């Protein structure tokens, strides 16, 4: 059974010209320990698909199954619980908690999910190059630094499914490669299903599988 299963997902957004279809029947499985790269041009619906997979947004039709559990069948509290412990999401816009320090942000989701491990957290911070920044606040960081905090925050909670939206988009090539390698290593070691969006063909080439979103369907 795949960890994450998307079945015939459809989604459109309302606009002045009427409903604009974005996703028109997307199906995708991610198994434990599998790393899937999602590519597609800007505006093709990658972020939308990730939000739907994380249960943040509901599809118009189709099903999202996490560990075989249908998201739509869960009450709001149940979906929230999945987000807390099972699904990790690294946002394109980072979405750090502005009132908490970098250190508190890193540990936050792990503590919410009750899987906090201080040693693991410190180790992650070191590997992400954040050790010197732990006392700062998010708005005192550069975009790339914020992005690494967002990745660290998701990894620290050790989710079963990790969804990452352009996790290296704001990083220089060397840092991006290091962070990417870290994510891959951890996913494979912990059996995490990893679905990540990237525009880099080179990085996509290192993944187990590569899918392209175009005209609302996977190619």
């Amino acid at each position: 059974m795949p960890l994450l299963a998307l079945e015939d997902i459809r989604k459109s957004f309302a606009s002045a010209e009427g409903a604009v279809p974005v996703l028109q029947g997307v199906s995708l499985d991610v198994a434990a320990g599998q790393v899937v790269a999602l590519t597609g041009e800007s505006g093709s619906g990658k972020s939308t698909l990730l939000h739907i997979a994380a249960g943040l947004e509901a599809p118009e039709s189709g099903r999202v199954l996490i560990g075989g559990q249908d998201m739509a069948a869960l009450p709001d509290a149940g979906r929230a619980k999945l987000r807390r412990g099972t699904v990790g999401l690294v946002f394109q816009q980072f979405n750090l908690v502005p009132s908490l320090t970098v250190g508190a942000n890193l540990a936050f989701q792990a503590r919410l999910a009750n899987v906090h491990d201080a040693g693991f957290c410190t180790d992650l911070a070191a590997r992400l190059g954040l050790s010197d920044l732990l006392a700062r606040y998010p708005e005192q960081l550069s975009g790339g630094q914020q992005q690494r905090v967002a990745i660290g925050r998701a990894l620290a909670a050790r989710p079963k499914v990790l969804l990452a939206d352009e996790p290296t988009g704001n990083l220089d090539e060397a840092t991006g490669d290091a962070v990417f390698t870290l994510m891959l290593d951890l996913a494979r070691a912990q059996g995490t299903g990893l679905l990540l969006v990237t525009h880099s063909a080179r990085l996509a080439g290192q993944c187990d599988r590569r899918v392209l979103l175009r005209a609302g369907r996977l190619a």
Partner: protein
Amino acid sequence: MTLSALLSHWMRNKVQLAMVLVGLTLATALWSGVQALNAQARGAYATAAALVSEDGAPRLDSATGQMPQARFIELRRAGVLVSPVVEGRVTLGDTRVTLLGIDPLTAPPGTAAALADGDLQGFLSGAGYAHPETLERIGATDMSPAPSQAVPVGTVLVDIGTAQNALGMTGQISHLLLTGPAPRPMPDGLRLSQPETGAELAGLTDSFHLNLTAFGALAFAVGLFIVHSAVGLAFEQRRGLFRTLRSLGVSLRSLTLALAVELALFALLAGLAGLALGYVMAAALLPDVAATLRGLYGAPVPGSLQFSPVWALAGLAMAFAGAGLAGGQALWRLWHMPVLAPAQPRAWAMASGRAMRWQMLGAGLLAALAVALGLFGSGLFAGFALLAAALLAAALLTRPVLALGLALAAKAARAPVLQWFWADSRQNLPRLSLALMALMLALAANIGVGTMVASFRATFIDWLDQRLVAEMTITPRDAAQAVALEDFLAPRVQAVLPLRQVDATLAGQPGAVFAMRDHATFRDNWPLIAQVPGVWDGLAAEQGALINEQLARRADLWPGDSVALPGAGEVAILGVYPDYGNPLAQAIVTEGWFDSLYPGTPTRQLAIRTDDPAATRAALLDEFGLSAQAITDQAQAKALSLAIFERTFLITGALNVLTLSVAALALFATLVTLSGLRLVQLAPLWAMGLTVRHLAGLELARALVLAGLTMLLALPVGLMLAQVLLAVINVQAFGWRLPLQIFPADWARLALWAGLAMLAASAWPAWRLWRGGGGPLLRVFANER
């Protein structure tokens, strides 16, 4: 062009616009409403003074308060220009009014003016004149006076013959008005007294008006907090727009000008609305204010409001001044903003960190000023300045103290959500701090004024019980009836204690000297706040006098000092007694001495001690034939005094509620304006697995926590306010000092109200968050960059 770009912001943020306008409208309304009340009352004093004193004509009085009409004819014959007056209280309908009888032919011009447009024939035949409001109160009676605005409320002006008949004073007059030079030498048994100028009445009521004004100013300040926070937030939100406009080539000068024009526009709109609202509010409150002034000071104030253009202009000016004050900071910041000012919240937070240091410095300076005023200041003005300085200092300390409290809580918190809760509350404090300051001020004012009134009430009720020991009091019709009553009652009751008084100037203040019989009733019950040993024996032995607290405090006269009594020279002060509710100076001497000093003074009232009030009452009514109206029993007297007391503080209560609502409105305005910003702060938590319900609950909890902390801070501030009111303001304004008493149940009730106000203010944004579900939060991920 620039202006329309600026104004378009308000079209998109209608709630914010409403808050600016509502805040300014309320501030103007409360301020100008209070001013209207004051102006109306002061105008009424002037009318009253003009008539009562008949253009400032001096009076000729006799010691007994009455003289035969023959004296008038005799003096006129001798060429002295005098006019007779008969004055007394009568009951018309169910209302007690003053009947003022004059002789229209010899009356001075001021009184004549009151008759100018009426017909003399009607007047002479007994109709008379009264203020329309008096007419309304007395309803239809056999005496039907014509309406006239020139007669003070509560007075009926009639021909002298009519008054003599109605008052049973045939052939007698009360006093003579001197319309020419004073006769020399003074005719036998007559005394020349200078007229009441109305300044006395104004002086006595000044404190009341100052209290009102202070409340108006407080409400105005709280209203400005709303405007300031709304304008400040709008400025923050339009930073990007300013930057765009500037980089498009709009000069700083025209941008600032456009912002100033925008403010002026608001001031004009809100000022006009505020005037209308203030007028309505004043008209609604005036009957109570008028009743208070009548009850407390006997000041005749009509209960209906008149419109004055000067008042309207002044109110509008206040609206402009308020808008300038509230928006000045935004204008100043715009003027100093570099073209490419960052729109980051961090820059704002840092600027407000600096602002916090300034606030603390300002608070320190103001606190020092308050202490200095408390130590070295004197007078009512210094008292209010002290209050203002202390309140402002406390307001400025609100944010640092709350920040400290939240930081401590964050340290103690273990669970991640709690940690976030405290840290996040603290981060949002700068944006909320103005509204919280307003809440703190409103709560402190409530605690302070509430404690003052409750302390006063407790002391007052005790005092009433001590002072009103006599089971009943009788008001005799005249001196002869007083003597007859005393003879009639003496064998039937335990004691008959006659009350006699003469008007007198004591230590330069208007007042009266009273006679007191040496009796256990007084020895055992009469409250004293300071005395020499053996005070009652000394009083009985004609060694000195008692004076009231007002006189003691105003003239700084205490036991051991002496005071000059008319006809007696300097008299030792044996004791000082509290005398609440009476603005005048008083002195008491023992009955025998009084009668030798002021012979022939009629008895005004008889206090009766009896075991069986019902039987005494029956005897008076059936056997003596006294009218029921002449008897006041103890319970009635207490009820009356308490009613006057309650009414006095009714307006205070109304203003308290208004101030608290204004603060709640400020909070609501701020929370609604912030709710967009909150989404950005809440979205990550939602994504990490907190439900919207949980988040909305936390928003409500935060509101409650902030209300609780603010209440904790307001408590000491309010007690300080009460102490200043009781020990400084009351002493200056009324002449009495009261002990501070603590009423924790009132605080609990207020805390409950504060919590409810805070919940009400935060309920809507929280509800929107909950109902909105994930949608608006998700949009944050899609749009926010």
